[in-house]
């Protein structure tokens, strides 16, 4: 028999999330506009409470938590290897990158970082960079969509589909992979994967240039984004911005280079930064441009990974990507903070283990989207409502990660 899911009481209808602003205390020209939580341009379930004077925004208060699942509470009751699927569901547009960061953190706690076979590391970087391209494509495409450019969105969805199919081929899932395991991989890449990746790169390179010409160099796009939402470098650092947000403001800072984790020190790639080509450095256009340049760099990294996977570290019969996967993960009692460069910024994991159990005592995620979104009110003082949408789109948030 089905139980009643909902017991009615009039008290339940009272709004549970009170507004920050009180309508009775507004000045005569001010008004409150609620954007979201169900609005396509908020990129998920984000509610923006906007205090505006006509078209001019006076203050913005983001209300988050609509997708809150308390990952950290779940993590406190699960063994380390079983947390990986939950990690996927945070930044679901770049699950491989999150998995990579998580696996790296646990490996560092176990002290097996240097024992991971090179082939495993190169496969990890290859799939992570594929996923980074997919994430940046979504960022650029939906940003165009927010500004009214419809065609680029279809183009990026078409090209992203190729990436998703490649990753599905390798892992069996389209978006939430559970592919990178602690100590290894779920499975070696399928036979012929490297060749298909090569084909993809050949196909995709001109498409990025096409996308750039259609969207990023478009006059209407430049008019909508140049000099909008300028984030000065000192504010960016002080408010904890990372990833393309920070690089768009002109700092050459990429954890792949700074920390040099995994096999990134062996790979050759550039870090693009915002140069203020169309307006002030750190505007919405710069952030988008940095993302498009990063797609090119990721393709370059992929190329080198494939060369290694076909040459120096090629597939052998004996190779078992699960050889080092521990049966039981019980790190010593310690505290560690691990970080890695996700497409959206610095993803950090703080672990505390007690050395007596297989589950973490505390597992905290420093989510890049969360911290990047906290700068939004700062950026939106005195802009038009249409520009608020542009600024939000250029931050590139995933609400699954903001709320966790």
């Amino acid at each position: 028999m089905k139980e009643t899911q909902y017991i009615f009481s009039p008290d339940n209808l009272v709004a549970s999330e009170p507004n920050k602003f009180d309508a009775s205390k507004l000045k005569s020209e001010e008004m409150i506009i609620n954007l979201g939580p169900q609005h396509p341009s908020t990129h998920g379930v984000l509610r923006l409470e906007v205090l505006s004077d006509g078209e001019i925004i006076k203050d913005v208060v983001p209300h988050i938590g609509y997708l809150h699942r308390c990952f950290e509470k779940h993590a406190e009751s699960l063994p380390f290897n079983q947390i990986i699927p939950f990690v996927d569901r945070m930044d679901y547009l770049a699950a491989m990158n999150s998995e990579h960061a998580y696996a790296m953190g646990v490996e560092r706690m176990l002290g097996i970082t240097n024992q991971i076979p090179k082939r495993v590391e190169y496969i990890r970087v290859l799939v992570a960079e594929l996923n980074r391209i997919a994430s940046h494509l979504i960022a650029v495409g939906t940003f165009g969509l927010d500004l009214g450019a419809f065609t680029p969105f279809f183009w990026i969805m078409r090209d992203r589909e190729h990436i998703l199919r490649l990753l599905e081929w390798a892992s069996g899932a389209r978006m939430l992979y559970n592919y990178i395991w602690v100590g290894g991989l779920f499975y070696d890449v399928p036979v012929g994967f490297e060749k298909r990746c090569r084909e993809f790169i050949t196909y995709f390179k001109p498409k990025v240039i096409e996308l750039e010409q259609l969207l990023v160099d478009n006059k209407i796009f430049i008019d909508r984004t140049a000099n909008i939402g300028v984030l000065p470098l000192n504010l960016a650092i002080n408010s904890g911005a990372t990833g393309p947000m920070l690089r768009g403001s002109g700092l050459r800072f990429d954890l792949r280079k700074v920390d040099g984790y995994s096999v990134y020190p062996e790979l050759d790639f550039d870090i693009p930064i915002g140069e203020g080509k169309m307006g002030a450095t750190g505007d919405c256009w710069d952030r988008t441009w940095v993302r498009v340049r990063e797609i090119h760099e990721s393709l370059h990294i992929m190329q080198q990974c494939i060369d290694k996977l076909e040459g120096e570290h090629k597939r052998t019969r004996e190779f078992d990507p699960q050889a080092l996967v521990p049966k039981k993960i019980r790190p010593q009692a310690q505290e560690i903070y691990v970080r890695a460069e996700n497409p959206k910024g610095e993803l950090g994991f703080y672990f505390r283990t007690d050395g007596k159990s297989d589950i973490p005592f505390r597992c905290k995620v420093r989510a890049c989207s969360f911290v990047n979104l906290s700068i939004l009110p700062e950026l939106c003082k005195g802009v038009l409502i249409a520009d608020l949408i542009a600024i939000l789109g250029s931050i590139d948030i995933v609400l699954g990660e903001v709320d966790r």
Partner: protein
Amino acid sequence: MIAMDNARLIELVRSVAGTAEEVKNTTPLSLSIDASALILVCEQLHKNPETYFDMLTCVTGVDNGPEANTMEVIYQLYSIPFNHSLMLKVILPRENPEIESVTSIWKSADWLEREVFDMFGIVFKNHPDLRRILMPADWNGYPLRKDYKHEETYRGIKID
């Protein structure tokens, strides 16, 4: 300018905070300081040209459970020019935990501290806007405390 090594960093924090205990088995270096000295230490670490911790990447709470009867707030500091990290730790009592907010030094502390308040009930004094951030405003209890009991219903909706 050369980055400070750990020994000099500990010395510097000790000279400001009075005591600074080094926590064992941590990556990066972790120093446990007194709650009352937090603001002074942070200001010093932020401004001192030899340390220059210009980024507060993460603020975490940890509940040590009713037996230990303590809570911790952990700050991850990072210095971009020196590529140096530091974990600052403050231990608080479990009843009415209160600590000074560092939002006046790093803006990134704003939401991070709100999250710690939301999940652990640690009050940050002088925070500009201390409200719950992830949970609904009328939610009972602080979910990440070790003795948190799961709610049966929320506004008439059964929670399984």
